[in-house]
């Protein structure tokens, strides 16, 4: 019974649509849970700036406030270990997701970002068996998600030498930034770019940059943002444009919530859980776009039962 338990969400950044969708999902799922008396509280907290130190302080404050569990989207996989360890020592359950932490006392709900990168290249291989030149748009330097996705992409390209990465820029998961970076490097790139591999939040910017440069639009892998999907659909309707889209579903925060609740309930939950990333294909595009709100991200939210299934699968 967890009716008297309090769960907090510690979030390091709220400045993009993915994070906003994540916070909305949290609200949507936890509010009814609180009303239903499943837990006593499920409060979200966001730091003002995307900084490890600020989040470490936030975690410490949450411990002081007597939360029984902290659901954590971490600014850094390692640098919060000190604060996480202190929380564990104080008897607080820590469940990390998306931005996971390496501290052994915490639970991790990981998405295989590396696999996501690989899948992007494999999709291109499918569509373009002859291969060709591709452009890579990376995320924020020094953050492990960026490194993991990029590693996957490069591994897959190494395995498929018909592809060649002719340029790599950092778009910081921000479409305006991605647009500027791509616009800058495009003129120096060969004319026959066949694909753009991305990390999410940057596909639309890339498309704009190609359009502004007057180049034919290659296959740009999208990142599930509504504007990306909408652009894709527009192209699809106009000229049959085909691509794929993948990202972690912001609703993973709700899975983390249920996992934390189950641990508090005394259930045995393995420390490492993996969830698949959410992928949108040509066939599922229309439906995904329909269910994604304007300015949001394609999403799945988890119920207590969904969470139970994920846990059971991991135990096997």
């Amino acid at each position, binding site marked *: 019974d967890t009716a008297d338990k309090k769960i907090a969400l510690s979030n390091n950044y*709220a*400045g*993009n*649509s993915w994070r*906003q969708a994540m916070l*909305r999902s949290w609200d949507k799922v936890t509010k009814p849970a609180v009303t239903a008396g499943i837990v006593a509280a499920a409060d979200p907290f966001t730091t*003002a700036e995307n900084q490890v130190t600020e989040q470490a302080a936030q975690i410490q404050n949450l411990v002081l406030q007597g939360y029984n569990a902290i659901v954590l989207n971490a600014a850094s996989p390692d640098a919060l270990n000190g604060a996480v360890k202190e929380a564990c020592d104080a008897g607080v359950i820590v469940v990390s997701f998306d931005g996971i932490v390496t501290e052994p006392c915490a639970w991790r709900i990981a998405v295989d970002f590396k696999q996501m990168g690989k899948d992007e290249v494999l999709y291109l291989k499918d569509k373009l068996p002859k291969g060709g030149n591709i452009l890579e748009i*990376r995320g924020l*330097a*020094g953050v492990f998600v960026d490194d993991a996705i990029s590693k996957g992409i490069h591994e897959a390209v190494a395995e498929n030498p018909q592809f060649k990465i002719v*340029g*790599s*820029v*950092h778009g910081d998961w*921000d*479409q*305006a*930034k991605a*647009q*500027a*970076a791509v*616009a*800058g*490097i*495009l*003129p*120096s790139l060969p004319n026959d770019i066949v694909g753009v591999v991305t990390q999410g939040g940057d596909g*639309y*910017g890339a498309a*704009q940059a190609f359009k*502004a*440069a007057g180049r034919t639009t290659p296959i740009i892998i999208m990142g599930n*943002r*509504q*504007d990306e999907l909408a652009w894709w659909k527009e192209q699809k309707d106009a000229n049959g444009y085909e691509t794929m889209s993948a990202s972690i579903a912001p609703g993973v925060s709700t899975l983390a919530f249920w996992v934390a609740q189950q641990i508090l309930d005394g259930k045995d939950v393995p420390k490492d859980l993996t969830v698949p990333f959410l992928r949108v294909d040509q066939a599922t595009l229309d439906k995904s776009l329909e269910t994604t709100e*304007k*300015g949001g991200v394609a999403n799945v939210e988890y119920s207590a039962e969904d969470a139970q299934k994920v846990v059971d699968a991991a135990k096997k």
Partner: protein
Amino acid sequence: MNAEPGFIRRLVAKPWLWAYVAAAAVWLVTILFTGGRGGGEVLTAAFTFATFSVIVGIGQLYVVTLGPGNVDLSIPATITLAGAVATKVMDTQDGLILVGLIVALACGVAVGCFNYALIIILRIPPIIATLSSSFLIQSTAIAYGRGIRIKPPAALADFTTAQVLGMPVLALCVIALAAVMEIVLRRTVYGRWVTAIGQNMRAARLAGVNVGRTRFTAYVMSAVFAGLCGYLLSGFSGGSSLSMGEEYLLTSIALVVIGGSSVAGGYSNVPGLWGAALFLFLVVTMLNTYGFGAGLRYLSTGLIIIAVIVAASARKATR
């Protein structure tokens, strides 16, 4: 040196020259990579993106000119707020373009008034006042739009992406704007007042300068330009986003100082902004083109900035 014709001597004496020299050098190195191919397109892209930084750079420049400690850190948040509010108000309708512009500028006016109220009524140092208000503005933007990306009206998108002969129309407009603001700084009473305050606020007051109104106007102007930038940027990049202003914090300050204005205030020039904006964009492009990884890219960017400022100072020393 004495043998030089007067024109060249005057040109060399311009503090903004080095920003352009650096930009040109970086451009040459970039197109060296491709053997000259794509040089024009790189410039087009540079002008396209420099435009937005220059718009906010002008406002920042006026604020920085007001003297030590004066800086506007709320520019990014204002860009975001204005972009969000404007796109929502326009709601993709071409007929509402003007309304959207007015709303975006009004956001700027409100932010500017709020900033200056903190500075003057509560006597909070500008750097902290504008930082604090930027948090409030960011929250307002989140609460207002929750990051909703609404497409800009088609006419606005077309205008912000239009080109003539490879030159972005918007860039041409902002070059004109920069020229006007340079004239305001040098040749109007207001500009002189700003510069006077930057050198010695007390002396300015005692020389009859209306210090309060002049500073107020500068802070409002900075926020209004940020609002304008947010409006145009959301038109250009297909809607507003919560993070759209982020990069303009460091950029706006960097433009002012690399452009040859004094960070201590009292001595500024607008032309340098364009040189610095082109330079900053081209540096990133050059390093991307040469395939530098993030680490080396940051490192080189830093070293290049320092090298430019040292080179500019060498010119001053030999003058």
